[in-house]
């Protein structure tokens, strides 16, 4: 079985073969894998190199923790990948990006307005929560399509705050 797996912006073509063989971007490895019952702990021996990984599925992605670092991973089988490519790629959606509230809190400041141009990383909203002021930033370059909240509003986790498009 072949998979196209994306970690950060790196793509890996991974093929699982018989007899503990795995081919990654054309390179062959011998892989021994065990999983601990119910805890999500994987022990990989990749050509005898030992890697312990915690894996959980969340929002159709996989969160993988290795040596303290968390990796966000997308896995597609070959067919799904080709279909997605034909539709214009996986990550580069032509649609709008949405900034949602990562936690319940109170909007302290809204720093943008409808129609305003924003750069990736630019501050958009200041949210007070957990006794802290938290800066929410634009995930992409673009234009503010819609601001759904105003300063002083209480918001729930996951509530849509601002949409940014082309």
């Amino acid at each position: 079985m072949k998979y196209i797996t994306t970690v950060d912006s790196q793509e890996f073509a991974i093929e699982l073969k018989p007899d503990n063989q795995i081919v990654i971007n054309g390179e062959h490895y011998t892989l021994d894998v065990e999983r601990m019952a119910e805890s999500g702990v994987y022990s990989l021996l990749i050509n005898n190199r030992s890697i312990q990984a915690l894996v959980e599925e969340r929002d159709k992605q996989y969160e993988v923790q290795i040596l303290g670092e968390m990796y966000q991973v997308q896995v597609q089988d070959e067919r799904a990948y080709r279909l997605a490519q034909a539709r214009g790629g996986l990550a580069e959606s032509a649609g709008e990006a949405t900034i949602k509230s990562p936690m319940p809190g109170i909007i302290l400041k809204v720093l943008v307005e409808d129609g305003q141009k924003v750069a990736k990383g630019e501050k958009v909203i200041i949210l007070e929560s957990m006794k802290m002021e938290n800066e929410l930033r634009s995930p992409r370059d673009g234009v503010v399509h819609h601001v759904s909240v105003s300063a002083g509003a209480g918001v729930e986790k996951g509530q849509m705050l601002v949409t940014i498009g082309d």
Partner: protein
Amino acid sequence: MNTDSLNLRKFDKLLIANRGEIAVRIIRACHELGIKTVAVYSDADRMAPHVRYANEAYHIGPSPARDSYLVIEKLLDVAQRSGADAVHPGYGFLAERSVFAQACLDAGLVFVGPSPEAIRIMGDKQMARAAVMAAGVPVVPGTAKGLTDEELLAAAPQIGYPLLVKAAAGGGGKGMRPVYKSIDLADAIAGARREAQAAFGDGTVYLEKLLVDARHIEIQILADSYGNTIYLGERECSLQRRHQKLIEECPSFVVNEDLRQRMGEVAVAAAKSVEYVNAGTVEFLLDREKNFYFLEMNTRLQVEHPVTELVTGVDIVQEQLRVARGRRLRHRQEQIQMKGWAIECRINAEDPYNNFLPSTGIITHSTLPSGPGVRVDTGVYPGYEITPYYDSMISKLICYGETRGEAVLRMRRALEEYRIMGVKTNIPFHQHMMDSHRFLLGQFDTKFVEERFSMEDRERTNHLEAAIAATLMAHHQSQEASQIVAPGARDTSNWKWLSRWERLQK
């Protein structure tokens, strides 16, 4: 000011007016001393470790702290119902509210902390300044509070620039403005007054010299009710972000024995200026020329007390309890020896790669590091939900070594072992700091994290391995889904399923 004599007597049952890791810490000390413990909990904390570890537990209301942990009457009611004869406030919440200490005394309870009067004086920046100045403690040059705008503008040249405009009632950086040129001072005063008025209902501000490249060094003190006050060395707490401490050490890289003694003696003088009893911390700013200035005194147990415990061997919480029971300090100053080095990393639920945004959610997995030289103080567990009601600290990871180098290397090892899933944590921040050249050389001040440290130059190296692990899980899921059609072929072993994938592929 002799409320102390009322405040001291043997007690056998202690109410802990707190939650989280510090409540667990206090319960452990009590159980080691044979003191029964009474926990309180809000709706969110029914399954919290402090509830499960205490001898008794009482519900005190909804999750927001203002409706539970901050309601003095509820706490006193539980003390009365449970027969507790003493109260430990922990840190945060009501720990530095003199009205709470007074209410405990009025209810006939021992308060594990200083007198309400000492809390009140040290809780007011201007009164605290006046008290310690009278005791000969150096303070950062600045003005009195309550001056008019005109008086402040007139006083500024004597202090010199850069300076800070600070709210008298302030805290957490609110109502604070740095001013680098005299031309900006009037605006800064006006802005700080507005902010202070909004945040604290009190627009009083004052001026203070802004120390450049300063370190935050604090002295742990212990005092009994017989006039004995000792210091347990210093803590280096310069690594902060938005005035939140992130990493603390004992001892400090820049404090030698002579400076330690001088700062220690000044800290003791500061404590004695308010007839301080119990554990406390005197915070100083230390400038490049090794001049130190009183910042404030925290009249309670400090989050970072464990680094001092590991290096001095003194159990500070047990000492607090003994002193509150009317005992004498177990140590004289000359018996306090510093040995080795300890570092504490505060593990918070926040994303270091995304501007340290707090991360809420349920902790689905938690494996603590262990082995030689590793201590973890935590109040969470698998199944615990990080809510917006309380702070985002998951645990304190403390590592000890014979030398600073050994402690750092051990901390790296422990950070690698620590496994938490469900929320993002700042573990990569700590790993990056432990790898940082400037941290290793001890070259940092209170501005280092915010101004000269970035996660962007961190190289993550296990993308390939993460890809393999996730792919195997995805593969397994799709195999399992297809096997539901033919359940007879299903693997019955929970353990071996993945090593079977190659057969499924044939």
